[in-house]
């Protein structure tokens, strides 16, 4: 099937599939909403560099939506705290800039669900995951490969390490770029000597003496970076622990055991919640869920995610995906609205269905 079915029988099937999926979500208690296609460009960066690079900025302070997470949150926030059932479903096009080496369509459909609420987070994780998975099943796509991860577990693992806040913050921010993360872990283990012409106690003063100072980045920031690199290093022990954590790739049921093998009992609180999620999975979707693949370095490259993440693929194409983004609300409007969402790409789903049952 072509990427966009806009007329004829393919379009009809796409409409029918989308309506069936939405009706299923509505029956499950999700309120159908219609988020705007244009939103405040100030929020685009929340998805991180990858999403920012893909987003069309309209040049008037508005951005054309490149996914639904932020627009749905904004619509939810508009209704205020007494918004009633904070569960939504939606469907519509998203727009993504293509570039050299990127032949993805610049416009395609996403259909998804979002849940805002702090009650029983692990149960909510599983509910969203199960709703997406069963929507795929009901449409006829079964046995779809799944990948799972947990960005919160990475943050917690970092928090157990005996490292400076500077290094912790830097490594946390690099999670989305696995290659750079590993390179930085390597690099941070050795001190970087100060440039030969900048020695002595007051680097900032020397910078001011020798250079014309311009722009918003201050000599104090430059000096801070130089001295931090010269003195603040990552111990080999912390580096190896972190690399061992990132290398974990196993069935999700074995994660607590594997993480304990790397980090001892330091993460027990977090792992107890992970085990709650495993129990919910078993309860809701059966014992075979313990074999779902998990990768410690898997995070879907959308930087608002900070907890459980998942992705379903068909022939290397993402057919559905989602994750928890508890801190997004805080960043956008200083509200405390833990949230998780998931989405399906109906066009990919339709072509997958054509392949499995021609």
């Amino acid at each position, binding site marked *: 099937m072509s990427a966009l079915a806009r007329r004829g029988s393919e379009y009809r099937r796409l409409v029918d599939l989308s309506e069936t999926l939405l009706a299923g979500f509505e029956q499950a208690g999700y309120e159908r909403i219609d988020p705007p296609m244009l939103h405040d460009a100030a929020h685009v*960066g929340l998805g991180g*560099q*990858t999403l920012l690079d893909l987003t069309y900025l309209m040049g008037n302070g508005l951005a054309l939506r490149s996914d639904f997470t932020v627009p749905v949150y904004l619509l939810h926030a508009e209704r205020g705290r007494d918004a009633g059932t904070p569960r939504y479903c939606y469907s519509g096009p998203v727009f993504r800039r293509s570039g050299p080496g990127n032949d993805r369509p610049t416009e395609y459909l996403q259909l998804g669900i979002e849940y805002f609420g702090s009650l029983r987070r692990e149960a909510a994780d599983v509910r969203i995951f199960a709703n997406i998975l069963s929507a795929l099943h009901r449409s006829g796509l079964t046995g779809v490969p799944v990948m799972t991860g947990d960005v919160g577990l990475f943050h917690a693992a970092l928090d157990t390490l005996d490292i400076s806040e500077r290094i912790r913050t830097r490594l946390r921010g690099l999670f989305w*770029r696995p*290659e750079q993360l590993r390179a930085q872990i390597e690099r941070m283990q050795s001190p970087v000597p100060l440039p030969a012409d900048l020695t002595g106690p007051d680097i900032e003063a020397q910078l001011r003496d020798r*250079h014309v100072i*311009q722009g918003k980045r201050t000599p104090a920031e430059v000096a801070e*970076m130089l001295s931090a*690199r010269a003195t603040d290093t990552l111990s080999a022990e912390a580096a190896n622990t972190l690399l061992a954590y990132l290398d974990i790739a196993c069935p999700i049921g074995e994660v607590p055991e594997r993480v304990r093998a790397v980090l001892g009992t330091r993460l027990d609180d977090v792992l107890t919640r992970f085990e709650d999620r495993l129990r919910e999975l078993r309860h809701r979707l059966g014992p075979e869920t313990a074999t779902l693949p998990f990768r410690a370095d898997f995070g879907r490259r959308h930087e608002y995610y900070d907890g459980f993440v998942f992705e379903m693929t068909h022939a290397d194409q993402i057919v559905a995906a989602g994750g928890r983004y508890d801190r997004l609300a805080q960043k956008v409007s200083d509200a405390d609205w833990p949230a998780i969402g998931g989405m399906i790409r109906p066009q990919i789903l339709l072509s997958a269905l054509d392949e499995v049952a021609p």
Partner: protein
Amino acid sequence: MSALKLGLPSKGRLQQDAIDWFAKADVTVARTGSDREYAGRVTGLDGIELVLLSASEIPRELAAGRIHLGVTGEDLIQEKLADWAAITPKVTHMGFGFADLIIAVPTSWADVTTLRDLDDAAAQFHANHGHRLRIATKYHNLVRGFLSQHGVADFEIVDSQGATEGTIKNQTAEAIADITSSGATLTANHLRILTDGEILKSQATLFAARNAHWSQANRETFATLRERLGLSPDLGPDL
């Protein structure tokens, strides 16, 4: 019979260099009317019609196939046409109009000499200032693609169509990506090129338009021109 349309820059050094370059192939381009009139004609080879265009519009005209051949910089072609190699095959480099697209930072950034350093500085800047490190450029696509390919994040592109070196002083950007030939303007503005910050080495180039209508006569004219330029008369599989 419609002539082969050759697009040349409508003014400046690039135009004069292009005219001199074609003269070596006994294709004489003469401006007609006053200096300010955008018209001219070609002698020495029949069947060529001159179209004078702003250098920055030549990529678009080539892509649309409204001209058959066009002279412009590789920087403009690659910035403006995502799939340029398929749309406007390169005929030949012309040996002038050299310009490098580079990334430069203030000389006072003693901690930033490479792209990896820039990535570190960008993360620090974003955390300290509440917005991403801004890179001023008119080459949005080339810069974004280059930085993404080299694993730099925490930046945003801000548009600058001229006097880009001044944006840092004016605090509308923290770093720049711009064309340089000698580097003198950068030095004068207290800026330094990153050691691995060269995005593209560009020069004036003759491009062909795959989407143009190539009549038999146009093809023959082009084959003759190619021969005179010392190129194989074979137009290749692209046209």
